[in-house]
């Protein structure tokens, strides 16, 4: 009836359904939040990086522009002759160095490439001739020139800025050498994270500033080649197999590429923290929901089991009463069919007895035998009649009715039914029935079933040799008839006492009891508006006390 595997399956189904319907939206929500946050965060990183790159580019461009403007101002406000005067260039150079320490030296070169005047630490290049060198041609052709970083004769990383001035039909060049360390300090900044880097590259991928990681200055690095593009680009580039985010921008004044590297792992750390928190909260929520689902399904199931148990006991009592009704109808039919022939046998015997009382038969030698035989026939017909009438009494409780019931009569009839069995086992059934017991509105058949169950149980409990005492009495306030059935059996242990009316609870051996008798009794008494309780002490027998209302 109560199939535990079925319930387990139902329980699992309930939990899984609840979990699925809660977890799926929760997971989707978590994923969406996580994704949204991630993309927002990444967009912010990209924005930040391009912002830094743009700023750096402006700074470097500004620096180069300033240097260029300074040189041009100097060149265009003085004539070449001016610088040829002893000490003039040194004065100008000192002035320039006061503004920017990165100037290494300054020189004036004539149209033929001769270093006319030089001021600076490297005296060896004072007499150098630059004619035919690329920068020289360039500056003559374009008027200004900014070189890549190189070691040159000074064997120190530097670059040059040169401007060409046309004076009459002659050209002369003002050339300044600048320590390229300036770029390192301009490019690097603490805005970059621990894994971040920044450097300048010329068009041949040669480093123009010292990167924090990787190759040294003037070394080559490959982050791919990019054609000149306006503004700033952010690219993901693999360096040593690890993806980095690069902010790229070409300088305006020189074909150098500014590259700012960002370590995404580092930048994404707060994101990971947030995502970890999101998943932690999600996991907590899932645990809560899971617990809730288990609790809810437990509650539902226990209610279901209780309902099912109730239904089962109802069904069983229904089945039992149906069985009883069928059995009753059969018993009534059989009894009736047997009663008719019994009546005829009895009357035939009676007729023979009538005839025996006549004079001539009385003198017959076998008169005594005839009389004895008739007596035996009558005795056994009466015995058979007792059986059939008991069967009819049993059959009487077919439909529940409300009748005036004499409880004493029902008790007596029930005892008659069980008397043989009791006598057979050496059990004495005694009664103490209140003689003027009032009639009650109840169902005699159902009551009989209850008494039958309880007395039958008592007989079983005693086993052999003992006594059962049945007493009835009327009490007032409330107006009730109390039936007490007491046995001298072994009694009921305390822990079993409260379970005794539970369905399927039985102390009898398998196959001997259904465990339903007392449950049915309980249900019947309840239906009849009464109460049934049991009092027992181990070793001192048991007493069932049934209270029945006089009027319903």
């Amino acid at each position: 009836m109560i199939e535990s595997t079925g319930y387990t399956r139902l329980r699992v189904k309930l939990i899984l359904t609840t979990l699925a319907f809660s977890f799926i939206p929760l997971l989707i929500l978590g994923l969406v939040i996580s994704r949204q946050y991630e993309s927002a965060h990444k967009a912010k990183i990209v924005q930040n990086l391009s912002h830094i790159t743009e700023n750096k580019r402006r700074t470097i461009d500004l620096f180069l522009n300033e240097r260029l403007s300074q040189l041009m101002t100097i060149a265009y406000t003085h004539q070449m002759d001016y610088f040829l005067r002893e000490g003039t260039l040194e004065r100008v150079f000192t002035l320039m160095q006061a503004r920017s320490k990165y100037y290494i030296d300054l020189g004036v070169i004539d149209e033929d490439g001769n270093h006319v005047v030089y001021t600076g630490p490297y005296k060896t290049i004072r007499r150098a001739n630059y004619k035919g060198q690329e920068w020289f041609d360039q500056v003559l052709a374009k008027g200004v020139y900014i070189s890549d970083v190189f070691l040159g004769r000074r064997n120190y990383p530097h670059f040059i800025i040169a401007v060409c001035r046309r004076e009459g039909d002659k050209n002369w060049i003002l050339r300044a050498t600048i320590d390229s360390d300036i770029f390192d300090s301009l490019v690097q900044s603490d805005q970059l994270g621990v894994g971040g880097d920044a450097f300048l590259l010329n068009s041949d991928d040669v480093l123009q500033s010292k990167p924090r990681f990787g190759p040294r200055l003037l070394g080559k690095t490959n982050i791919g080649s990019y054609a000149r593009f306006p503004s700033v680009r952010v690219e993901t580039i693999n360096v040593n197999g690890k993806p980095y985010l690069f902010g790229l921008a070409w300088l305006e004044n020189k074909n150098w590429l500014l590259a700012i590297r960002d370590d995404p792992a580092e930048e994404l750390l707060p994101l990971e923290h947030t995502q970890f928190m999101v998943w932690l909260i999600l996991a907590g929520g899932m645990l809560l929901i899971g617990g809730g689902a288990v609790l809810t399904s437990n509650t539902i199931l226990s209610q279901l089991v209780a309902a099912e148990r109730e239904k089962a006991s109802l069904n069983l009592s229904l089945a039992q009463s149906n069985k009883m009704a069928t059995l009753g109808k059969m018993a009534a039919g059989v009894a009736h069919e047997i009663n008719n022939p019994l009546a005829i046998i009895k009357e035939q015997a009676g007729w023979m007895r009538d005839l025996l009382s006549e004079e001539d038969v009385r003198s017959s030698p076998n008169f005594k035998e005839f009389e004895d035989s008739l007596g035996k026939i009558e005795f056994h017909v009466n015995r058979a009649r007792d059986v059939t009438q008991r069967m009819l009494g049993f059959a009487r409780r077919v439909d529940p009715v409300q009748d005036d019931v004499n409880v004493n009569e029902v008790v007596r009839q029930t005892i008659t039914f069980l008397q043989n069995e009791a006598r057979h086992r050496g059990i004495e059934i005694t009664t103490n029935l209140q003689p003027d017991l009032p009639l009650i509105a109840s169902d005699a058949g159902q009551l009989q079933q209850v008494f039958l169950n309880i007395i039958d149980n008592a007989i079983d409990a005693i086993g052999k040799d003992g006594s059962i005492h049945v007493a009835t009495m009327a009490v007032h306030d409330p107006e009730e008839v109390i039936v007490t059935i007491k046995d001298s059996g072994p009694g009921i242990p305390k822990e079993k006492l409260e379970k005794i009316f539970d369905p399927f609870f039985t102390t009898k051996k398998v196959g001997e009891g259904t465990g339903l008798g007392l449950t049915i009794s309980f249900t019947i008494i309840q239906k009849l508006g009464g109460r049934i309780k049991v009092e027992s002490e181990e070793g001192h027998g048991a007493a069932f006390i049934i209270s029945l209302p006089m009027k319903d």
Partner: protein
Amino acid sequence: MSDISILLVDDETDFVETMTKRFRIRKIDVASASNGPDALNLLEGREFDVAILDVRMPGMDGLELLRRIRAKHPLTEVIMLTGHASLETGMQGMSLGAFDYVLKPADFDDLLDKVRRAAERRALNVRTRHAGG
């Protein structure tokens, strides 16, 4: 007592035969019928003090017959005879005006006693009727 007349109605012929012999040996006038309509015919012909009716009979059953007898011959007392020891049938018979009911197989002396008391009541009824009317 020999002036009591009985109508016995039962479909069990052996039962009717034996009962008839047993009543007659006690000098009681008995007529018998094996079904309801026959019994009613007999009742048309003459009066009976007491009618003993089996409850369960094919065709018209005992209770129906009781109803008709009470309607047409109210002075005839009726004793119901039932193989069905149900209280309800007996009570139903009583409520329809039967004098008493006896369970089958009945104790003959018990039945005889009830017949006598029924006859006494009838006699009483007849007298009060005459006195009243």
